[in-house]
């Protein structure tokens, strides 16, 4: 099961452990594709566009309210909404729904910033001596962890989960810190480019993370297809004496995904083997097990925070795909529209049939509009030739999908039940554990769109359970209302009854009293008038 390799012995002799394996997965052959790898010319800096678009949306895809007004001047790094910072110095020109990178081509309320001409450039990260670096890290680590909020750190792997939340959600402490230096998908090379360009900053960022999380071990997982990057990083780690070990993992899609990476590094399977708890919580989060997975780009961004107090406002984006004229890696400020990135690198599609994708060939999607801005989740922009649809044939249940599924599901069974909308069966077959990697689609001899069906089934199941919850709440409110109305009616009846009773019981007495009183008053009046 275990894969031996020579790299491990050479660079991390004190922690000799071979990576574990995981079920399924695919060796994807990408050698024929236009790649940015190895012949890359480093990371290109992109000029700042005149207009930046910052979508006001959080990790859970909920809209958030802005903290700035129109015409307000914002500085770089200023918080403009909870968890969101302004990527540049400029003026808020408008706050309106704008397109963003979304599979459905939706728009979301966004802050549009007109950038000012005298914006500061990104100076190259300066690398201090090992001693000075340790001092800086120590003083940073002594600050409360909430300081990280200013950095607006989110995972740069593709999902964009806030790093601070990730670290804080590990209630029982962090045992293992995994630095993800494996690219998610074959077409992406942004992590590799960063490792080649700035290994020292990454190494120092990792050291900061180790100090912050107080973890017992830190493992940097690099795919064996990047020996050069590994060498660079390992030298930097030795130079700064970082408490981390490098583990070379086999290049097999989808090792870069969190679930599989954790399995490869620690041998623990977290996300699956839970057939009997439908819909609700079929997955346990890694932090519950004391494992935290952080992307290498995030570590780099953290070092920028330590070194010059700069928040995360840009990232490296791979420009690739078969129809990309100048494939390269560029550092892009968040909020830069995709078409600006393409035109600035002379990659504007010359062909109407060229599709521009974000997120990779497998877990990504085609963009509806090139006006959508780059965000922390955008690890690549791909230009691909027109898609030739292969019509799906009937499933013969050959089971090749089950053989490659990295989370050991039975896609053929899931597909059968997802198509007939049997959501209970899907839940029993643990559909929620599907990581939507697309391996099953790739091997399917009948070209069935399995992953699309699963995404649909998952979102429908979620929709139904939300509806159910809403219905429960509505029922509760209805019950409360009934109760209230009943109570009110009862109160009213009781009040009437009480009055009646009061009238009845005091009937005679009061009446005679009243007459007496009236007579008395009349008499006294008479008397007084006489007098």
């Amino acid at each position, binding site marked *: 099961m275990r894969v031996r390799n020579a790299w491990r012995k050479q660079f991390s002799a004190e922690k000799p452990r071979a990576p574990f394996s995981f*079920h399924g997965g*695919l060796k*994807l*052959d*990408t050698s024929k*594709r236009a790649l940015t790898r190895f012949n890359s010319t480093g990371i290109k800096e992109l000029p700042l566009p005149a207009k930046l678009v910052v979508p006001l949306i959080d990790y859970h895809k909920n809209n958030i309210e802005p903290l700035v007004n129109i015409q307000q001047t914002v500085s770089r790094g200023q918080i403009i909404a909870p968890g969101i910072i302004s990527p540049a110095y400029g003026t808020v020109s408008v706050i309106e729904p704008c397109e963003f990178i979304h*599979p459905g*081509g939706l728009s979301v309320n966004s802050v549009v910033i007109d950038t000012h001409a005298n914006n500061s450039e990104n100076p190259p990260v300066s690398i201090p001596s090992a001693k000075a670096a340790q001092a800086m890290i120590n003083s940073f680590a002594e600050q409360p962890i909430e300081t990280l909020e200013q950095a607006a750190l989110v995972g740069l792997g593709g999902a964009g989960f806030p790093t601070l939340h990730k670290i804080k959600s590990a209630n029982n402490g962090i045992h293992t810190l995994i630095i993800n230096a494996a690219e998610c998908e*074959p*077409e992406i090379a942004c992590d590799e480019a960063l490792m080649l360009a700035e290994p020292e900053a990454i190494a120092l960022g990792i050291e900061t993370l180790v100090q912050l999380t107080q973890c017992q071990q830190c493992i940097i997982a690099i795919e064996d297809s990047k020996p050069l990057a590994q060498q660079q990083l390992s030298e930097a780690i030795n130079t700064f004496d970082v408490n981390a070990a490098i583990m070379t993992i086999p290049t097999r899609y989808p090792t870069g995904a969190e679930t599989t990476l954790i399995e490869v590094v620690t041998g623990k399977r977290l996300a*699956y*083997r*839970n*057939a*009997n708890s439908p819909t609700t919580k079929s997955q346990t989060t890694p932090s519950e097990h004391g494992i935290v997975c952080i992307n290498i780009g995030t570590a780099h961004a953290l070092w920028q925070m330590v070194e010059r107090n700069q928040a995360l406002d840009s990232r490296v984006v791979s420009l690739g795909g*078969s129809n990309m004229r100048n494939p390269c890696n560029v550092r892009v400020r968040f909020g830069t529209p995709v078409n600006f990135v393409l035109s600035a690198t002379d990659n504007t599609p010359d062909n109407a049939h060229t*599709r521009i*994708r974000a997120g990779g*060939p*497998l877990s*990504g*999607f*085609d963009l*509806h509009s090139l006006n959508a801005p780059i965000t922390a989740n955008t690890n690549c922009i*791909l230009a*691909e030739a027109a*898609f*030739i*649809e292969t*019509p799906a*044939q*009937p*499933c*013969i*249940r*050959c*089971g*090749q999908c*089950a*053989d490659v599924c990295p989370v*050991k*599901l*039975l896609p*053929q*069974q899931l597909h059968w039940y997802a198509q007939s909308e049997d959501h209970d069966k899907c839940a*029993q*077959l*643990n559909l929620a554990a599907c990581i939507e990697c*697309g391996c099953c*689609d*790739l*091997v*399917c*001899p*009948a*070209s069935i*769109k399995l*992953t*699309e069906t699963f*995404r649909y089934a998952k979102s429908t199941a979620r929709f139904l359970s939300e509806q159910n919850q809403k219905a429960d709440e509505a029922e509760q409110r209805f019950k409360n209302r009934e109760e209230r109305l009943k109570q009110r009616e009862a109160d009213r009846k009781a009040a009437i009854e009480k009055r009646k009773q009061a009238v009845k019981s005091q009937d005679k007495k009061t009446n005679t009293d009243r007459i007496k009183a009236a007579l008395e008053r009349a008499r006294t009046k008479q008397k007084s008038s006489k007098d």
Partner: protein
Amino acid sequence: MLKPILDTQAVSLKTLNTQHIMLWVLAALLPGVFVYAWFISPLVFFNIALAAVLAVVFEALALYWRGQAIHGGVQDGSIVVAAVLLALAVPPLLPFWQLAVGVFIMVMLGKQVYGGLGNNPFNPAMVGYAALLVSFPQTMTLWSAPDLLNQLTLGHLLNAKLSLDLLNPNLLIDWDGITRATPLEHLRTLKMQGLSVDQNLAQQQFISSGWVWTNLAFLLGGLLLLYRRIIQWHIPASVILSFALCSLLFSAQNVPWYLSVFSGALMLGAFFIATDPVTAASSNRGRLVFGAGIGALCFIIREFGGYPEGFAFAVLLMNLCVPLIDHIDMHWGTSA
């Protein structure tokens, strides 16, 4: 504009499509077919051709009735594979119209009423075979004798085969002359008469009948499929193992287990019939159970049942259990 969500063409990965899989299965059947034709009867070519043509015609007809694209439905080749399997399973001398009935049942009741490829719970070829076996028990157990083949012309045999008049007494006498029971049927007859079987004689008969060689040829084809990863090892291995184990432990007949494994339709069944993925269990664990069930049932029917060869029934019975196997498997967790 089309917005593909999964860009499968961006990742170059060589995979087989359904048509390729079916072609590979047909190719893997070839050695078995030739050995069968050599040792048992060359009439099998006629049967295969007839069954394949009829199957395609019936399939096209059914697709036309259902208002579906005929070309797309037929071209995957699955029905041809099923037809060849049925033609290999029936005796070579089966009258052609009976074979046609079998093919019709296979296509219509076995496959198309359930919605075509991928929807049928039962193995279509075995549905056709079982229907033929219970409908025409007399002709379905007529096997030609290999040593007599040389003395009769092929035309003679074809003539007998094409005859519509099944119950013609002259023909029956004629057939008695040219047919002989398979070793399994011979064993069965002996058992019925309460006679014990001499081991050496049985061995000799098993080997000389050519069934062993045919089975070996099918094993060869099966190994090819395994090597090409068209099929997985789970089902054939468990079928053969459970059958061998059963005959080793419980067989009352004097036939060594290594010979009974290579008799009848066991190899053809284990590698080509039971591995039909549509009607087999889903998970690898389930497939082991599925295969073991087939092996055991096949042994039980051969040893104690009323039919000389029980593979078809064993497959159908386990097809019946597939939803149960999947159900239990699902509740035991998804990982195999």
